[in-house]
């Protein structure tokens, strides 16, 4: 019987046990009306390493970065609010003339680089091209040029009688985003993941069939490290769904597949990591087998714990925690919405069964979170084994209002305040969630709104 060891608990207010968090509404960003503009659909959410910045990408190819106010925490009742820091167009729609295909500008993933100097760097990717963006602040500008007026017009040189040294004067803060590198033409199929290596020099990008390794400085070359494309495309039965570098071991990465397997690869073993070092797969439960077994086993997200000891996978109905030392089954399994198991046929019909939900860890790896339908999202406390369902809705939008737990009634008599499975809105899906790396602040994306929740601060 596997006994769970306690991993290092960093000093967070929420360590599980009896101190359950009370989540409160903090902010909501985005349009209020129900008419959702396609371009505004949020496609990725990511905190940076300090948690001070929160980036979102949308279907229109835009990146919006929010910055947390550095309030005086003794005075305030809550942690700093997130306000817009920078907005820029990361990717534009492109047309591939050779294949007569339009390339979507939708941002699939954003990953932050750790901060090395005053500027911030992030990688953003659409289906085909990855870009490195530099986000820098400008709060001073030089004034007192000799040859130019303040408005930029050139002065008549004959009027210049003295020489002065331009000085920097304060100005209103301007945040500029500029593309520093463009990593293109390396993916035939759709990029689903990017992951920065712990060496902070290289990163991987994964599409349906291949994974490439890049150096952040070099854009005209990438190394192919995984290739699962069969010689005969008719034999294609499995695709890559997600990939991530290990947080500490710069030679290790994992990738998940549409068949519910995760492969851990060591780049030291060979240049082409087609042979995995470890294969993680849980045998199918024969009592649950159906025509849809494979579809619901398809892994939509894989995330290492901060400690690097565990990894979490999300398939259609559950979240699984794997110990990297045990390949034959996960050490923990959490049911996200088991009540959907009897509805798989309908969900296949309306294509919801193909929805790709992401998942995330809290900073201390003690709680995991993932989204569901009806704008519900779920959290599982690994220590107390308790779980909670909350809703991202504008109805609860008074700051410091504690969110009321939700419950879905699977069958039988519906209790008061419960919602029956048949009333769930399957168009309101929470696919993207993020947890602040240090604090109990979470960002939850509905279709076109970004909700920020915090734990109640007394």
């Amino acid at each position, binding site marked *: 019987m596997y006994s769970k060891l306690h991993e290092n608990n960093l000093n967070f207010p929420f360590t599980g046990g009896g101190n359950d968090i009370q989540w409160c509404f903090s902010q909501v960003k985005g349009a209020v009306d129900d008419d959702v503009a396609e371009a505004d659909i949020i496609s990725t959410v990511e905190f940076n390493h300090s948690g001070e910045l929160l980036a979102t990408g949308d279907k229109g190819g835009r990146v919006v970065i929010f910055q947390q106010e550095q309030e005086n925490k003794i005075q305030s009742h809550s942690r700093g609010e997130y306000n817009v820091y920078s907005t820029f167009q990361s990717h534009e729609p492109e047309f591939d003339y050779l294949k*007569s295909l339009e390339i979507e500008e939708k941002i699939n993933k954003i990953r932050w680089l750790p901060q090395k100097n005053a500027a911030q760097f992030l990688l953003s990717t659409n289906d085909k091209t990855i870009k490195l963006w530099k986000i820098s602040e400008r709060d001073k500008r030089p004034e007192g040029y000799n040859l130019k007026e303040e408005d930029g017009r050139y002065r008549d040189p004959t009027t210049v009688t003295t020489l002065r040294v331009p000085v920097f004067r304060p100005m209103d803060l301007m945040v500029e985003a500029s593309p520093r590198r463009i990593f293109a033409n390396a993916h035939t199929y759709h990029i689903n993941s990017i992951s920065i290596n712990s060496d902070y020099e290289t990163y991987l990008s994964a599409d349906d069939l291949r994974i490439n390794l890049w150096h952040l400085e070099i854009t005209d070359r990438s190394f192919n490290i995984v290739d699962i494309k069969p010689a005969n495309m008719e034999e294609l*039965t499995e695709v890559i769904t997600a990939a991530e570098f290990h947080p500490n071991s710069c030679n290790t990465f994992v990738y998940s597949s549409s068949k519910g397997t995760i492969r851990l690869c060591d780049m030291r073993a060979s240049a082409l990591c087609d042979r995995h070092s470890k294969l993680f797969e849980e045998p199918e439960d024969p009592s649950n087998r159906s025509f849809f077994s494979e579809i619901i086993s398809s892994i939509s997200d894989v995330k290492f714990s901060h400690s690097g000891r565990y990894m979490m996978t999300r398939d259609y109905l559950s979240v699984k925690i794997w110990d990297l030392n045990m390949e034959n089954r996960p050490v923990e399994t959490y049911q996200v919405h088991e009540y959907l*198991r009897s509805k798989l046929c309908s969900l*296949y019909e309306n294509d919801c069964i*193909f929805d790709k939900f992401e998942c995330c860890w809290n900073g201390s790896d003690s709680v995991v979170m993932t989204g569901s339908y009806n704008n519900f999202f779920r959290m599982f406390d690994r220590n107390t084994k308790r779980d909670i369902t909350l809703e991202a809705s504008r109805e609860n939008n008074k700051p410091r209002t504690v969110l009321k737990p939700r419950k879905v009634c699977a069958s039988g008599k519906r209790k008061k305040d419960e919602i029956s499975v048949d009333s769930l809105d399957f168009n309101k899906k929470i696919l993207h969630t993020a947890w602040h790396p240090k604090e109990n602040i979470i960002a939850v994306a509905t279709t076109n709104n970004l909700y920020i929740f915090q734990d109640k601060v007394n």
Partner: protein
Amino acid sequence: MLSKGLKRKREEEEEKEHLAVDAWWLDPGHASVAQAPPAVASSSLFDLSVLKLHHSLQQSEPDLRHLVLVVNTLRRIQASMAPAAALPPVPSPPAAPSVADNLLASSDAALSASMASLLEDLSHIEGLSQAPQPLADEGPPGRSIGGAAPSLGALDLLGPATGCLLDDGLEGLFEDIDTSMYDNELWAPASEGLKPGPEDGPGKEEAPELDEAELDYLMDVLVGTQALERPPGPGR
């Protein structure tokens, strides 16, 4: 030529075997089986999957994950719809070749071949050289039956059921399948990529009827009485 007799037998078997077919995948004792959709949903599930497959293939750049998952699901459904006698009652692929396999191999290759060739095109886009295929990448009017069996065994999507429905159901079977992909111009040697294009073929969105000549031809293809060779276009 598959006879009415075979069709009737299939119907009877279908009724009897429905529960067994379900049991193939579901433990009868499990709660979810009690709520499982009625056995007849198997064939509607099949139709739904074929529709999804077509829809997926009609995208200018199909979502590979979606495509692969639908194809794999279709295979499972097809396997469960095959006559029970031909398949061992364990949830594993039949190891020994059988009459059913031969039927599968010689059944309508048009759909599966179209799919196969579209997947082929995905790799051709990269410019990688491929092992020469016995099948040309055209629609039904050029299909080689001999070539179909070995390379498409895994992808045959219409099993013996198709043959049994020949007499009545062929048009119904194809009713909701967009045959614009069978248009020759789509597979002209000069064309690259898998863009079906809204301009190709008649009425993409409605369900086009097969005309008599095409129907006859398809029937011939299905029963394997005619094997036409058509040389592959340049660059394939």
